[in-house]
């Protein structure tokens, strides 16, 4: 079978290179920014690129289970690394805003977090990522037990929605990208909800 062949190949690929390869585009972008090669407003380019990459990786992490269930291809060994690097990009996105854009003007930053819904939502999403990244190791998984660990990591759904809404709220008019991301996130949540309802129906 093709699936078992593919899964056989996947089993031989280690996950650790993700920790090295996935951050590279972000580092390259920062290097370009340092060399003044990102155009008129490099801070905005970094902010946008890091945030968008973070959202993409969160979506990728949420795709692993549907791919497994629908196509029979098991990529779950890569999910932790994808999730951790998603956090790194979201962190870079936030630090770009805090340090380069706002110049660490704490009074201004606090006001913005409180008064601007898109920043509030972004910050809440970031905070919700913290328990996920802290428990992204085998020791935590053992200590918490798979049930509690899984419960905690369902926060990913909330983070994905927060990220998508954060993006929708920051743009003028209705450009394509944030709408596409929002639709993808909603579909990924909807398919899980549907599975859950189906499973419940079967048990009754």
């Amino acid at each position, binding site marked *: 079978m093709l699936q078992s062949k593919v899964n056989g190949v996947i089993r031989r690929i280690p996950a650790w290179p993700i920790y090295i390869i996935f951050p590279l585009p972000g580092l390259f972008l920062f290097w370009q*920014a*340092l060399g*003044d090669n990102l*155009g*008129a*407003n*490099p*801070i*905005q380019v970094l902010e946008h690129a890091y945030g968008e990459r973070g959202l993409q990786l969160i979506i990728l992490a949420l795709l692993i289970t549907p791919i497994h269930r629908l196509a029979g291809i098991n990529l779950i060994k890569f999910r932790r690394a994808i999730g951790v690097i998603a956090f790194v990009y979201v962190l870079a996105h936030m630090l770009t805003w805090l340090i*380069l*854009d*706002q*110049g660490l003007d704490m009074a*201004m930053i606090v*006001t*913005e977090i409180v*008064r*601007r*819904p*898109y920043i509030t939502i972004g910050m809440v999403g970031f905070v919700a990522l913290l328990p996920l990244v802290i428990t992204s190791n085998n020791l935590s998984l053992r200590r918490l037990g798979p049930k509690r660990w899984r419960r905690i990591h369902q926060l990913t759904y909330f983070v994905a929605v927060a990220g998508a809404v954060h993006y929708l*709220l*920051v*743009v*003028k*008019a*209705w*450009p394509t990208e944030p709408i596409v991301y929002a639709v993808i996130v909603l579909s990924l949540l909807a398919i899980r909800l549907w599975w859950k309802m189906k499973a419940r129906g079967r048990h009754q």
Partner: protein
Amino acid sequence: MTYRFTTELRYSDVTPKSLWLNRRQIMAGGTAALGLLAGPSMATTPPRNPRYSVKDELTDYDDITSYNNFYEFGTGKDDPARHASSLTTSPWEVKVDGLVGKPGVYAFEDIIKGVNLEERIYRLRCVEAWSMVVPWIGFQLSEFLQRVEPQAGARYVAFETLYRPEEMRGQRSRGLDWPYREGLRLDEAMHPLTLLATGLYGEDMPKQNGAPIRLVVPWKYGFKSIKSIVRISLVSDQPETTWNMQAPREYGFYSNVNPNRSHPRWSQATERVVGGGLFAKRIETRMFNGYADEVASLYSGMDLITNY
């Protein structure tokens, strides 16, 4: 004397266009290229008007022409520079109608014939909280309006951008309600700061910046300064304007730069000056974008928080 000398000195006198566009090529060309230094005559560059020019550092030509909001060519900042070359700007006509003594279709060449072209260095503040300093070439809108003779009942001026989806790819999707529309109160339109601009940095208006003719209203957010104008109407009632139609709570008819009146979703208290690089700080936004002395009287007695 010294003062006169400085104000009449233009960037183009300092750095010939061929040099700042192609410095590297010219270096490579060696001595042969040195001839260019004496070559281009700048006699046709209009004189700078110091009365209406700010002394802020100019934004680079490359930044002004590569970082644009011109949704007719796409919503990305680099879309206009990439896609505006498809726009045909010659021939170009502007239809003048409504409450005017001389309605009609005016060819671009006719519009600029005999007008008082000059260079003015204006700040440009975008509603997205970034800003630039642009050396525009243009003439006062009032000059043109006087020529077409507004009638007594005219209280507003309405503008429209070209609608030509086969050349303006952004118009093929319904991002905004095309054609793009803007408007001014007649006294705002007649104000000496209000320009019809036909160029920048001493050359014809780049297409991504609104060729061949656009509005520049420096004390209002950038989207009021409508690009590639094909229609000017004198009307009695406040005209509909594109961003106001799109989100009335967020973009008012006046849209004067006002650090005290936040956009509902983001602050307008500070701005990022484009071209400052990675470590430049934001600067504080000024009331009327720093033009309060000239324009505040237009709004005396008005609540600028509710009339945003």
